[in-house]
């Protein structure tokens, strides 16, 4: 049984959070970074940041399904999407974008996948939401909003409209069990 708790999630203004992230990312533009969003929530955030920052290089997307460490338990996600890195990552500055940083396992998988494409010069991690519950020594360099949640709670980014705008995105908190 999953119930939805709107309060905390509703207090976060996504437009404002993105603006804050853009400000923090602005100085990195000089290094002509490649932005890569992790499917699917991270890809939405990356697409919006990419527009707002007016980055020259095309946006990349990553589906980490084939790199997950829980494959032997849960199998392949049937909705797996194609990873698309349109520009060679060798010696480039990568800005890796995700919607929620939680255990850190997704980021580990994403970095493993990026390194199968080449050897980037450096990787900066930007996440819309950073929450507690890290299981790996991974930290975000740019954080939109930090939240503290109960271990049974999950915060999730969803898209309510066909067209992607900051207004089409919504954060929801789902409670497992109870």
């Amino acid at each position, binding site marked *: 049984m999953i119930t939805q708790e709107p309060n905390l999630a509703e207090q976060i203004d996504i437009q404002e959070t993105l603006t804050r992230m853009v400000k923090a990312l602005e100085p990195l533009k000089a290094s002509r970074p490649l932005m890569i969003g992790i499917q699917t929530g991270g890809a939405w955030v990356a697409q919006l940041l990419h527009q707002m920052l007016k980055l020259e290089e095309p946006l990349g997307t990553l*589906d980490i*399904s*084939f*790199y997950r460490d829980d*494959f*032997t*338990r*849960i*199998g*392949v996600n*049937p*909705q*797996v*999407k*194609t*990873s*698309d890195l349109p520009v060679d990552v060798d010696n480039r500055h990568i800005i890796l974008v995700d919607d929620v940083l939680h255990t850190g396992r997704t980021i580990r998988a994403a970095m*493993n*996948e990026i390194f*199968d*494409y*080449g050897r980037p010069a450096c990787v900066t991690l930007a996440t819309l939401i950073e929450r507690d519950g890290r299981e790996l020594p991974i930290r975000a360099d740019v954080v939109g909003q930090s939240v503290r949640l109960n271990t049974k709670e999950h915060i999730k980014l969803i898209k309510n409209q066909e067209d992607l705008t900051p207004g089409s995105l919504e954060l929801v908190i789902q409670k497992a069990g109870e």
Partner: protein
Amino acid sequence: MTNDLQFDSQGQLRNLLTIEGLNRQTILDILNTAESFIAVGEREIKKVPLLRGKTVVNLFFESSTRTRTTFEIAAKRLSADVININPSVSSTNKGETLLDTIDNLEAMHTDLFVVRHKDSGAAYLVAKHLPPHVRLINAGDGRHAHPTQALLDSFTIRQYKKDFSQLRVAIVGDILHSRVARSLIHVLNILGVPEVRVIAPKTLLPVDVEKLGVRCFYDMRTGLEDADVVVMLRLQRERMQGALIPSEQEYFNLYGLTLEKLKHAKDDAIIMHPGPMNRGLEIDSAVADGERAVILPQVTNGIAVRMAVMAIVMGGSAPKDRRPGQ
């Protein structure tokens, strides 16, 4: 009964023996997963870590180059350890039975078997014998089934034709001996292709072939009329007992695909062949090497589709599920 072996109690695909019993969604999941593996094959490092530490045994009791090689590459691109066994030059020659061979390989902690055998039903027999944590993919059993070929063929059709619901597909040649044809007919019916045709001399059509859901034609020109996809089959002379065709020249004249006969199909029709091709017997070189042939893309797609099937049947195979000694 087959489906008890193909699916677990949660409805997850565990062994792939035949297309029969799969539903549309399972097939689409395989094709969509394969789509993502195509991109992996185009990268600098063509490997993902999904099956790291798993042991795959390719057990081919019947010779094969293309299928065995693409299964091997597929397993390697998933980071599995893969062993090829060709029992015609090993222990079965010394009198060991099929199931004894399997037991020995299973005792070496094999996680996945890919089996090809000249007898129909061999894959089913082996799957029934294996403990539940060991998985099996049928790479062709006798005249019965060749499910991964049918999946890669439908993947290739979707790549060029997008929408299954508008297509006319003609399968030409030795339908009688062809496990490829049987599996392909099933997959196209499940995917909703409105018209599947078979074109062959009566001697090369199975009895009651219409019951599989196809229209029969004995003449190439009428059968190819307005076809979107033409699948040529190899004339399987090694399986033929008795005189099923008058002569090879006569067969080519009547059923060999030439540019002239191809004019009856649609202008944008694609030509497929599962290989190996007999040039000048079922297909003319001008067609096989022509721009509408997608025979080599079929081979490339075969790797991605086999990666998808392997990944799906091996998914969720955590050691805690192991039930040894069964």
